[in-house]
């Protein structure tokens, strides 16, 4: 760092997406304060506008750019753009799906929008951070908002309990992340990721310290991923939180976790790949095999999706540990498309939920085809995409990751991953059977929800199909972001 760097006027334009989102979040807060609308309609539309406009700004300002600002603490680059736009898009879906649900339960408050928007901001900061402290702040901002969001439902003991567990474990994990960072600082005397990377490449007797820092950071990151064995919070939180919040945690936050990994470990500690690869392999193996089987015995779809997450996290970790551009690109593609698919799956759950009724039992899906062929078909697409059957985008995601893994020489891991995916087939396809071939118990829940909700959900579901047939463009973008 030179004097000039330290005192340049920061290029505010480069960080405009975050600044814009922050301004919009404050605007939402103010508008909502003065709005008399019981349904918080202005806040809703303003929030959606904020997300879309931020995404547009991000694409315009940051795609194809590779620059830092704020004395190197903020970076704008291609893969950051992809992840940010994906996170914003997932947020958009989340809000679109959650409005009716939250209103019916009296949870549609200004705080909901505020906290969610700040969580989004936290994600963007995490993805764009180029400095340990900034990264940590982004992660904390996101996590804190999620703790609060999980606890939003006042009547639910389950939610309070889940929030508490999430918080305590999350605090511990954040602590680990912070210790890891302080180790790195202790060794390199710098918080800047580029400097750390240089230092990591020329390690001598202080290597061991670096490795300790690495272990702690891997633990922290694994927690955010929900990778086994740091996964225990996932089912409780998915089940306990209000479904829209679950949706955001299950989707956008995973995308942010990929960002966290890529910045901190993939970028900052890239020279230590031989060391962290081993750790990630352990996590990936456990994730693929351990939590996954539990999904088989679940009767609650939220819990089932929670347990099934582990398998997918295993796949994402596989892509990440392959290390090469192909692996990173595959992991990003996997994360983005997985999140999109899961968002739609939660969307269907929300669609079937009514006032005073949660459609989160598997039995609620019985005979859905007779009640609503369209949404049964969409759910079919989602389930076969999550299984990884061709025709849907989930297949290409798995294919890319497996290919990268094989190319990186981890043939056995690829085989193991396939074994895990086989277990997945059992519980995903069971839902298909319920919808198409079983008779509902009683009347069964009817799809509810406004026209806008239905339209977005339908598009979301069909996108899974469309990307399954024409994945080329998205794959090209993901790969291009990591091209040397």
């Amino acid at each position, binding site marked *: 760092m030179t004097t000039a760097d330290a005192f340049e006027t920061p290029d505010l334009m480069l960080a405009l997406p975050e600044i814009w989102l922050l301004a919009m979040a404050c605007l939402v807060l103010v508008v909502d304060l003065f709005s008399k609308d019981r349904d918080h309609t202005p806040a809703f539309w303003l929030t959606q506008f904020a997300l879309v406009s931020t995404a547009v700004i991000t694409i315009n300002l940051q795609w194809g750019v590779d620059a830092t600002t704020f004395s190197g603490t903020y970076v704008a680059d291609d893969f950051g753009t992809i992840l940010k736009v994906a996170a914003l898009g997932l947020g958009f879906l989340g809000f679109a799906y959650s409005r009716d649900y939250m209103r019916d339960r009296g949870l549609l408050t200004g705080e909901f929008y505020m906290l969610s928007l700040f969580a989004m901001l936290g994600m963007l900061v995490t993805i764009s951070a180029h400095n340990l402290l900034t990264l940590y702040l982004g992660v904390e901002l996101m996590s804190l908002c999620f703790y609060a969001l999980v606890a939003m439902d006042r009547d639910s003991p389950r939610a309070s309990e889940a929030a508490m567990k999430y918080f305590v*474990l999350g605090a511990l994990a954040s602590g680990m992340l912070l210790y890891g960072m302080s180790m790195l600082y202790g*060794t390199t005397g710098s918080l800047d990721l580029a400097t750390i990377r240089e230092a990591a490449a020329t390690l001598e007797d202080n290597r061991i310290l670096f490795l300790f820092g690495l272990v702690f950071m891997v633990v922290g990151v694994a927690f955010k991923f929900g990778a086994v064995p740091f996964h225990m919070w996932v089912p409780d939180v998915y089940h306990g939180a209000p479904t829209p919040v679950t949706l955001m945690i299950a989707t956008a936050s995973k995308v942010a976790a990929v960002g966290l990994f890529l910045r901190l470990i993939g970028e900052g500690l890239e020279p230590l790949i031989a060391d962290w690869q081993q750790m990630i392999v352990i996590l990936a193996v456990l994730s693929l095999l351990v939590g996954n089987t*539990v999904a088989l015995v679940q009767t609650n779809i939220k819990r089932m999706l929670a347990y099934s997450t582990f398998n997918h996290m295993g796949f994402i970790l596989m892509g990440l540990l392959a290390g090469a551009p192909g692996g990173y690109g595959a992991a990003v593609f996997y994360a983005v498309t997985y999140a999109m698919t899961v968002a739609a799956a939660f969307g269907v759950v929300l669609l079937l939920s009514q006032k005073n009724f949660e459609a989160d039992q598997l039995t609620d899906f019985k005979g859905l085809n007779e009640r609503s062929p369209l949404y049964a078909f969409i759910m079919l697409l989602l389930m076969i995409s999550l299984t990884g059957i061709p025709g849907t985008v989930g297949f290409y995601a798995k294919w890319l990751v497996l290919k990268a893994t094989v190319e990186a020489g981890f043939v056995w891991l690829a085989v193991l991953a*396939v074994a895990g995916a086989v277990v997945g087939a059992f519980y995903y396809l069971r839902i298909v059977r319920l919808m198409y071939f079983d008779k509902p118990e009683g009347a069964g829940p009817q799809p509810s929800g406004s026209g806008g909700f239905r339209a977005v959900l339908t598009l979301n579901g069909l996108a899974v199909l469309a990307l399954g047939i024409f994945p080329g463009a998205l794959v090209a973008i993901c790969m291009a972001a990591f091209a040397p």
Partner: protein
Amino acid sequence: MLIAVLSGFILAAASPWLARSVGDRAGWLLAALPAALFVYFLGFLPTVNESGAQVIHYPWIPDLDVNFSFLVDGLSLLFALLISGIGTFIIIYAGGYLHGHPHLPRFYAIMFAFMASMLGLVLSNNLITLFVFWELTSVTSYLLMGFNHEDKNARWCALQGLLVTVAGGLALMAGLIMIGVAAGSFELHEILADDDVLREHPWYVGMLILVLIGSFAKSAQVPLHFWLPNAMVAPTPVSAFLHSATMVKAGVYLLARFNPGLGGTDAWLYTLGIVGALTMFTGSFMALRSTGIKAVLAYTTVMALGTLVMLIGIGTEGAIIAAMAFLLAHALYKASLFMLAGALDHETGTKDILKMGGLRQLMPITFLASCVAALSLAGLPPLFGFIAKELMFEATVGAPGLAFFTTVLAVVSAMMVAGMAAVFAIRPFTGKLKETPKKPHEAPPSMLAGPVVLATLGLLFGLMGFIPASGIVQSAVGAVYGSPIEVELYLWHGINLPLMLSILAIAGGVALFLRWEQVLDFYRERLGFIDRFGAERGYEKWYDGVVWLAEWQTRVLQSGYLRTYLTITVLTTVVLTGWTFFGHTNSAVTLGSMDMHFYEVAIAGVVVVGAIAASVTSSRIGAAATLGMVGFGVAMIYVLFSAPDLGITQIMIETLTVILLVLVLFRLPGFLNLSKPADRVRDAAVAFSLGTLMTVLILAVNGVTVTDPISLQLAEWSYTEAQGRNIVNVILVDFRALDTLGELFVIGLAAVGVYAMIRLRAEDKQR
């Protein structure tokens, strides 16, 4: 070509509408598409026979190495012709069989999608598209199998079939990726062009196993054969199509396709030879005890698939010729037999052979066609089935290393199948007319067209073996074998060993037919254990095992106890760090500088004592007080070691914390001592391990020389550039202003979170 393959999907989308608007006769109209495709594929025959394989290429997703490229050679053409040709009759047949069924339009739609997937599968030149179509056939066939979903059994069986084939498919995916990466190309013609690239690759065994799992699951090889007989719950047109030319043959197709690249090794020979032969035997053995008319056929399909796999495994010229001839013969007679079985079932209302009899007069055409097709199944001259069986015996007799094993099993299986062929063709039609649920009469033309034509073809090909031989079999054999082979097919080979074996098999078959009742009794009385130890039990046991594992995990890992979660997190961290530490040879723990002052140690002691006291105290006030002790002690440490700002902040925050605790703590319940002593010891051990780890880490850090931190430079700029004398403050508000802003947001957010929760509580009280 692209249009030809994809037209099925297009028609699938349009067919419900078409079927509804055309009405009753829609089957005849819709059959035009497969018929047209059949003619289209016929058009390729001359070129392929003359100049060999053709590759037709359309780029799709070049970034992914995914292309729509099609490989048209003898093998793919043979399959494509069977699929489209038999498909034509199946569609016509379905129109009659499912006449008046409310979901018939949907049936057409799935059927066309399935047919198109199947065509895509056999024609794909690209491994990825091949796999895509492979899995599509699994899904669409699942929907077809579960078509009669009012039946609980049908749902279960269909799901079972889907799971087995999808599971196998995923294994195949891994195998194909390995092949693609190993060969450096995902295009089949390039992979297979280089003979030894796969066989000599270090991953050979791995990719072989994975590909075999996929193929065996799909083609119902032992021990994964159990799903196929269960899959006959499907409506008969589906069974006829699935069993004769499509679905189950996909695995065989794949093996045949990869024979030039993966075959020819001992592993290939013995795995395929033994598994195939065992499947062949199991299939015929189970067929013999079946009385359901479709079950008999389903098990003979298992037998046929076993035979094909065995022949491909043997891999000699003769074996490959036999495989292709057998494939063709089987497709012809099995499709017609299934359609005839459907006709019997449709007209009599029962599927049980024992309950039918004397239908000869009432259903003469059905009877005649059954006889012809069954003769081919039994392998009697002058039918094509006979030629195929002769060739099979010839191949097993000449099998390297497995001659005795395969020949014995082949002869025994052929006996049993011949017996069942006779049962099928004779029992329902002769004897006294039996009472059946429906009043039988001859089936409609739509249901007879297929069986009659296909059975006749079986006869024609038998009499004039040169037509199939030069027409298609020769090119197909060339494609499977990897180099061209001259093929001649004729009935009379002279008196030789295969002929003797044939005669033996037929004699045995006749004996079995005559004594069938006794055979059935024998199965019932002596062989009941099969059901208890069969492969299907294995599947159920496996499923139960996974469920048990899941429940065990829930109990142990996902108990809902926060402290279990914490313990696992902490211990994993300790283990990972310890592993890193001890895995490193040059890691050293040094005791740092031992220079210390008395008052420093005293303060450190205060902190430690405070911490311990806080953890053992049983009163809330005590806890608040000891925490204060710790907090102020830490503040003192900051001050002593040159961090006055930290000290001040810490004191302020500590004061606030104590106030907060006092305010809130007393709204919470008192301390409870709930844990058992054993629990406490365990928790103390966990806590101690983390504490020790941290101590060791710091000591390890002490032993390391640290590079000059950049913050020294920051200090230099602090006054010169930022005009501030307190460097920490300058950093916070100037150098790192952005982070401080972030910090403010985090605090603000915490406040919003607190507000959200408190406000809701206030509202609760109002309610």
